[in-house]
């Protein structure tokens, strides 16, 4: 039990609960089934990308192209859905393939040419977004077919399917991190890359797979987002990559690599979603949103660092008789 409270997730979970209770007391509109469903559904694409981002951050990398990759997939899938052979099965396949392509390009450039990931993904961020803007001239793709939007329907009136996807991907990725040698390699590369190489880990392949996997998740996020909105706005979701990174970091992922968990990231996404929603419920102008995000990010990370410093100081003490 003690171990549980020492964990980073516990702190953020407490903030989330306190905030949730405060909002519930302040406004009866917060703790309603419709409102909770909205928070979960509106953040599902972000959550799926945050799963991938967590892996990338654990290896010590970063991917600022996630939002572009998602829109790249969303735009191509929206076009795809009007083709004769489009159906729920082929479109899922298409989402995975599109994401695998964009993610693999990132991964290949970063691992093979050994270029800093922030530079590569800044570049591809612009390229992926540029391609779809050129292709669509920025026009919205409207009225997606009913079978497409059915991907985000609510089953039995209570269970929205996007939430099911998020949970499945969280569990799958948590399993990969904990029980596969790839998962171990992800933590090892982020902890000490030279030691990982000496331990016989194929570092380049691990890095490549991490970005490719994140690409696939972005591809799926594109499908989910299209399906929720019922249309596709190629210029939309601008700047989401920052929210994705923030969610992972708030959830305890070390931006310098080495640590991070799926549970933490899930809580991080929820916390950001509740803050966004809470500001609306509390009738605070949405302009405040960014400012509050910033404060929360700095606050959670600072508390974490302070706690770590104090723990370290404890170890350095010399025994004086």
């Amino acid at each position, binding site marked *: 039990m003690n171990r549980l409270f020492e964990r980073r997730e516990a702190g953020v979970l407490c903030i989330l609960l306190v905030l949730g209770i405060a909002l519930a007391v302040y406004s009866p509109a917060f703790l309603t089934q419709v409102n909770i469903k909205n928070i979960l559904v509106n953040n599902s694409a972000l959550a799926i990308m945050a799963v991938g981002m967590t892996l990338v951050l654990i290896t010590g990398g970063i991917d600022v192209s996630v939002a572009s990759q998602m829109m790249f997939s969303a735009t191509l899938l929206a076009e795809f859905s009007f083709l004769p052979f489009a159906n729920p099965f082929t479109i899922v396949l298409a989402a995975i393939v599109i994401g695998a392509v964009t993610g693999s390009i990132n991964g290949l450039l970063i691992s093979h040419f050994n270029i800093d990931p922030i530079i590569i993904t800044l570049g591809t961020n612009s390229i992926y977004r540029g391609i779809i803007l050129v292709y669509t001239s920025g026009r919205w793709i409207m009225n997606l077919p009913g079978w497409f939007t059915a991907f985000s329907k609510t089953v039995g009136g209570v269970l929205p399917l996007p939430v099911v996807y998020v949970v499945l991907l969280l569990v799958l990725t948590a399993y990969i991190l*904990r*029980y*596969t*040698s790839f*998962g*171990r390699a992800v*933590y*090892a590369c*982020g*902890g*000490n890359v*030279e*030691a*990982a*190489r*000496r*331990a*016989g*880990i*194929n570092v380049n392949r691990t890095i490549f797979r991490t970005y490719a996997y994140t690409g696939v998740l972005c591809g799926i996020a594109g499908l989910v987002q299209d399906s929720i909105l019922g249309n596709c706005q190629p210029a939309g979701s601008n700047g989401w990559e920052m929210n994705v990174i923030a969610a992972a970091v708030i959830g305890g992922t*070390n931006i310098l*690599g*080495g*640590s991070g968990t799926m549970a933490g990231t899930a809580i991080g996404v929820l916390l950001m979603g509740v803050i966004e929603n809470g500001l609306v419920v509390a009738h605070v102008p949405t302009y405040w949103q960014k400012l509050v995000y910033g404060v929360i990010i700095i606050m959670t990370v600072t508390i974490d660092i302070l706690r770590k410093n104090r*723990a370290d100081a404890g*170890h*350095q*003490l*010399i*025994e*004086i*008789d």
Partner: protein
Amino acid sequence: MHGDTFLRLDHISMTFPGIKALDDVHLDIREGEVHALIGENGAGKSTLIKILSGVQQPDPGSQITIDGRQVQFQNANDSIQAGINAIYQDLSLFPNLTVAENITLGQFKNKKIDWKESDSIAAEALGRMGVRLDPHQLLGNLSVAKQQLIAIARAISFHSRLLIMDEPTASLSFSEVETLYSIIEKLKQENIAVLFISHKLDEVFQVSDRITVLRDGKFIGCEDTARLDNNSLVSMMVGRSVTYIALNAQSNVGEKILEVKNISKKGNYKDISFALHKGEILAFTGLVGAGRSETVKALFGLNTPESGEIWLDGKKVELRSVPQALRNKIAFIPEDRHAEGLVLNMSMRDNLTISVLRNILGRGGLIDNNKADELSERYVSILSIRPSQIEKPAKDFSGGNQQKIAIAKWLVTEPDILIIDEPTHGVDIAAKTEIHKLLKDLTKTGMAIIMVSSEWQEVFAVSDRVIVMRHGRIVHEENTVTGNQELMMKKAILGV
């Protein structure tokens, strides 16, 4: 006593652009032996280790045979599969993972990781070494000595036949070295061979069965340890006989410059009082963790005392920050010159002038490159830094020369008191002797030097006086010319 030879390296050569790091080197390892590999810095030991552990591939024509079969190591994994595990000087572990995770990383190739089995593998490996540790704690929270034990546990859990230990005692205290020796003894009984790389010859004589010597990338010889002594080994290593020359017979000690009165800081040092004189080399020694570095940092404004007084030239001073210490003409050269002393990517000139930027300013307050060059070249020649190219990045110099650059960087501030932490840590004998001589020469100008050192021979060869610390307190002080080495060691280790 010894087993059969199971691993042979023949005609190993390794060419880097412009340099032949290894030239026709031989090495054979017998089952269950402790084999020391020695040579000066740059002799090719590290390259040989990298080849053995599959990190680098030797030139064509090089032969590695295991149990009579020729093998090739394309990567680290091939070497690990063949039963060879290296424990690097930096340990190459993962601070972000638990003890058990560190030990079993790579054990579950391409199958589901079984955490129960992982725990039992870790427990078994630690048990075989007689080490008791909670396998679920984060490795980053352990001391370096304990981390090294984890690195060994990790290696033996892979069913190693050969363990390579690169400078395993470099950051260990005396009692920890004893633990390491007893573990090496246990490994021998399990028929695991150890390739032991060390700068410290007394260690080599104590633990090894055979010794292979490399010099300038060439194989010099392999002998039974029993058939060698200090002198014959050193002459194999350097091609000439070198021992530490006692430099302290001639003393330059003058009047008192610094007096420290009863300074204390909780958890760091307690009740420290001593005096320092012009032209004196005062050594601080004791076990790692005795509070030596913590104490001397107090004089550089880095670890300010909570009580007590510091007097400089008969005046009471406050040393609460580095600028205050610098204004009082005190310089400090840290032990870890990579992390704290040098900016490795910057040129030697930029490193040398970084702490005296004010002195090299020209018109308009901008840096005058001519002045910088002049200043750098002066110190390059005073310290005979090789090569003397001031534009070369610090990382391209050898360990001994990097140490000299670190020293020069603080000499340019023209201090009255120079504090130097482990001045010869990790450099070869020739470079050590040169640094010793340099320190002695500095005292002729009246500079007072405080030297923190773990090496007894160095303390007795170089310093005028030694202070022994234990558990944050001064337990002994004596003159090194007339003093008793054995008594000092007893004080440090046992406190009696």
